[in-house]
């Protein structure tokens, strides 16, 4: 008998080991976020004491800028990468905790208004991206990924759709790079446009929640304007996120009908699988706050916990954005994404102006 080939045994990684691997990166997120907070507090004071004119820069922008500086100069060493990637986890925990600052009635009222706007935004975004993708001769599945990424919730939607429509890895990395690069740009352009147009906190928050693709960037773009705008941006973006399952299901059915993806068996189970569960957590905490389960001080404590979680998220947004890596992904998807995003931003701004008149924001 021939000798058996001895294959190296793959040892399952223990959860404790996995957790310890996250610690350096989580410490880096904390350090960058906290440095942003310290800079916000001290730079203004220092400038004032030296009679300099210096704009008040919020901790959100400092944290993102420090992260960008690290990521685009020295880079993120391997040891930190797993922990830095937890910024999405902190974002979701922060959104759930933010639910305590909304009464359920307000969520339903604001969410109901947002839902109508979100439905229009999704239809517009899918339409624009599909037309632009065809005009630029992009591969149809890459066009689908860009459309879903800009219509619903950026990277998460692209990853969810990639599996459902059996798109190539290359297509999804092109689409993710385009959405991330445009998200980074929106952080700097949206607040400037909002201030130039003298948008109210409410109108600006809804606009950034509607037009900025990634949830982390939407939350950051809102918080860069004001605390109230940040809250509304998260609520509107969460409404968009809640619809991810329907959009992914529609694309999966479309590609399956063309014989280029697997057929969907149980549609309800597919929707539940794709549904972002943190939306339920947000609604549940909001319900508890509505029934006065938390007193005023406790709501304040939960709001501050949410701010800490967002601080780590904003640090992560800067740390994971590497412009050289994004530039390597090619110009065409970026051009389609950029033109589409500008159109979506303009149209959603029009929608928000219209809604402002109807709802008196």
């Amino acid at each position, binding site marked *: 008998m021939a000798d058996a080939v001895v294959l190296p045994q793959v040892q399952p990684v223990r959860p404790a080991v996995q957790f310890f691997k996250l610690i350096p990166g989580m410490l880096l997120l904390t350090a960058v976020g906290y440095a942003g907070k310290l800079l916000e507090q001290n730079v203004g004071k220092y400038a004032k004491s030296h009679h300099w004119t210096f704009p008040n820069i919020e901790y959100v922008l400092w944290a993102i800028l420090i992260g960008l500086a690290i990521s685009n100069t020295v880079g993120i060493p391997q040891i930190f990468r797993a922990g830095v990637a937890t910024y999405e*986890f902190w974002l979701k925990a922060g959104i759930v905790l933010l639910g305590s600052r909304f009464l359920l009635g307000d969520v339903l009222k604001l969410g109901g208004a947002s839902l109508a706007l979100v439905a229009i935004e999704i239809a517009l975004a899918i339409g624009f991206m599909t037309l632009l993708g065809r005009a630029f001769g992009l591969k149809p599945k890459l066009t689908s990924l860009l459309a879903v990424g800009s219509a619903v919730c950026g990277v998460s939607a692209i990853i969810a759709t990639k599996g459902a429509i059996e798109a190539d890895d290359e297509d999804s990395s092109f689409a993710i790079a385009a959405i991330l690069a445009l998200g980074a740009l929106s952080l700097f352009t949206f607040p400037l446009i909002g201030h130039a147009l003298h948008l109210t906190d409410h109108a600006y928050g809804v606009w950034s929640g509607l037009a900025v693709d990634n949830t982390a960037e939407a939350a950051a773009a809102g918080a860069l304007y004001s605390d109230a705008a940040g809250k509304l941006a998260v609520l509107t973006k969460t409404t968009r996120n809640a619809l991810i399952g329907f959009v992914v299901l529609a694309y999966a059915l479309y590609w399956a009908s063309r014989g280029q993806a697997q057929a969907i068996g149980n549609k309800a189970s597919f929707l539940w699988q794709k549904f972002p569960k943190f939306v339920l*957590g947000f609604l549940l905490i909001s319900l508890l706050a509505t029934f006065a389960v938390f007193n005023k001080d*406790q709501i304040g404590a939960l709001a501050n916990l949410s701010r800490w979680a967002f601080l780590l998220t904003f640090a992560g947004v800067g740390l994971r954005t590497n412009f050289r890596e994004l530039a390597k992904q090619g110009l065409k998807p970026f051009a389609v994404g950029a033109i589409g995003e500008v159109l979506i931003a303009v149209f959603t701004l029009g929608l928000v102006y219209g809604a402002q008149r109807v709802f008196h924001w």
Partner: protein
Amino acid sequence: MSQANGEAIATKRRGLSLDGWAVLLAFALAALVRAGVFKHIPW
């Protein structure tokens, strides 16, 4: 389906998703605040 894929899917099914862990952490923190363990969270 390869064994590695099968194991990966099985592991995914066994564990909580990222969303699930985030919700769990948020509720654990909310419970600690409600119970008075964390009385004041500075900002």
